């Protein structure tokens, strides 16, 4: 286990290093001079421009800028927002819990729908129920998140008036109101997760059901229900657990447009607002943060894979 973790860390560190290079490189794509954007009204004043340039180290060579930037990054300094006058790291930490709640709810919805549907469609392979479940999953994958969100608001908020169309109440302030404001966006994100988990579960179950131990179980007279639930499902869930962890990371990307539509002040809304306001350090910080979260989640996925799979545990 330790050697495995060390090997994985050996991969992660270079990957994150390359991520930092890419994120730093984003700045170079910018058309125009950042100093001019920052100076705003005072862009005519060469002294102001020179001051901004030296503050941002824009007057230094690129490698020096990068080195300085990376050094501060390693000390947890993700930069300073141009518009909100706050450290980017603080901004991200402030918004992340909101998105974490949303992601958690979406994931529960996705797993509760996706895993049983995947099992059923594998058990009833090539029968109408299998086609129906696959069809619904295909619809789920093909529907753009943000359009589904708009359609849900149209139905449940505008026409039926059951749920608030937008806004957010923190869980600890008013749990019921918090659920009411997040249930629609969570459902929107959950359908995507459900579709993907369903496909993975179905594939893993089909593999498991064709294994020898399943045939043995059936041969010795174990009831089919138990064969599916105990013998096949427990093995099929191993890849699903790890893929589910990765899928959880992808919820961050899905949250971008969904939060924008439901005006939920989370991580995704932070990205969109930063793009609208041309708050480039925030955009960079967000890309870095998602990469970090994603890499840590895939590490977690690997560890879980080892933990739930006794064969691998013994092998390492």
């Amino acid at each position, binding site marked *: 286990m330790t050697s495995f973790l060390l090997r994985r860390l050996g991969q992660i560190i270079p*990957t*994150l290093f390359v991520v930092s290079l890419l994120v730093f490189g984003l700045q170079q794509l*910018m058309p125009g001079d950042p100093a001019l954007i920052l100076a705003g009204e005072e862009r005519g004043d060469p002294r102001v421009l020179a001051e901004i340039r030296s503050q941002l180290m824009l007057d230094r060579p690129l490698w020096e800028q990068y080195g300085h930037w990376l050094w501060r990054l390693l000390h947890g300094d993700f930069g300073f927002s141009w518009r909100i006058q706050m450290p980017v790291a603080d901004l991200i930490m402030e918004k992340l819990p909101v998105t974490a709640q949303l992601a958690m709810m979406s994931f529960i919805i996705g797993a509760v729908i996706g895993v049983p549907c995947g099992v059923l469609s594998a058990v009833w392979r090539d029968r109408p129920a299998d086609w129906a479940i696959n069809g619904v999953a295909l619809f789920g994958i093909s529907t753009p998140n943000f*359009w589904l969100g708009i359609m849900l*608001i*149209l139905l449940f908020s505008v026409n039926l008036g059951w749920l608030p169309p937008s806004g957010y109440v923190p869980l600890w302030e008013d749990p019921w109101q918090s659920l009411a404001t997040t249930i629609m966006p969570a459902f929107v994100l959950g359908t995507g997760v459900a579709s993907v988990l369903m496909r993975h579960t*179905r594939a893993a179950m089909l593999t498991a059901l064709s294994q020898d131990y399943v045939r043995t179980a059936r041969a010795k007279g174990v009831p089919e229900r138990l064969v599916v639930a105990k013998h096949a499902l427990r093995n099929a869930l191993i890849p699903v657990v790890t893929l589910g962890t990765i899928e959880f990371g992808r919820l961050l990307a899905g949250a971008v447009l969904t939060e924008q539509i439901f005006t939920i002040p989370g991580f995704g809304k932070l990205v969109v607002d930063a793009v609208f306001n041309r708050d*480039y350090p925030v*955009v960079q910080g967000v890309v870095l943060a998602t*990469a970090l979260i994603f890499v840590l989640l895939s590490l977690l996925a690997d560890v879980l894979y080892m933990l739930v799979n006794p064969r691998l545990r013994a092998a390492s």
Partner: protein
Amino acid sequence: MSAITTGSALIETGESPTRRALRKFLRHRLAMFGLAVVVCFVFAAILAPWIAPHDPLATSWARIRQAPSWAHPFGTDENGRDVLSRVLWGARASLMAGVVAVGFAAFIGVPIGLLAGLGGKWVDMLISRVADAMLSVPFLILAIALAAFLGPALENAMLAIAVSISPVFVRLARGLALDAKSTDWAEAARALGNPPWRVGLFHVLPNILPSLLVQSTLAIAEAIIAEASLSFLGLGQQPPNPSWGSMLNAAQRFMDTAPWLAIFPGLAIFLVVLAFNLVGDGLRDALDPRSQVGGR
């Protein structure tokens, strides 16, 4: 299992694998439906100037937010423009972004992936780390960040999507090249004295084309959603030119009075993405019997 059935089918019918795959694909009813929808959208995009009933940019204060009628089947928008005409013209931005972005991504991604798979250990390490780094940022967030830095324009959105999706092709081509490298025919090609680039270009590439075709079709579906998302955020097609994403963004403000503004552009995105997914799934079933059902 598939290798055996493929072999026996070959012996029984004497049919080439390409013909067999084509026959399987043509008999795949869902894929044919998807293909028909794609063809319809392609025609709509090409013929938009002739089949659109109105000028997509012509505003009219007399016809603001009119409900669907015979004169305007999809209604009119907040500036009195005909929504049907705008949806038809919007197909151009969407399909072009999807096809161009994926084409460009494959064009740069596949050679780099082949290089990683067939080149030396260090080349492979370098390329794989860069691909890993790009894949560790979720696709849409990377595309949004790139588009934000490049500046709002349809061309920039396409470039951002192409770059964000290219590591998928790098990884796929690398994996397939590694598989192909260890096969007997690649060995034979090398033994005959072919240099590595020749083996890659003339022996490995043709053998991995089916998988690339499947991946490209599914990637177009993703790229179309990404273009709509970027346009929705104002980073794609710029107003007043129509695109489905920006139409949806404008529609949000009039949801209670003019729901048709939100329904039709979204329906168009949904249909075209569904169609590409159906074609992709059908191609996978027909071309690549070994592949497992994966995620998006």
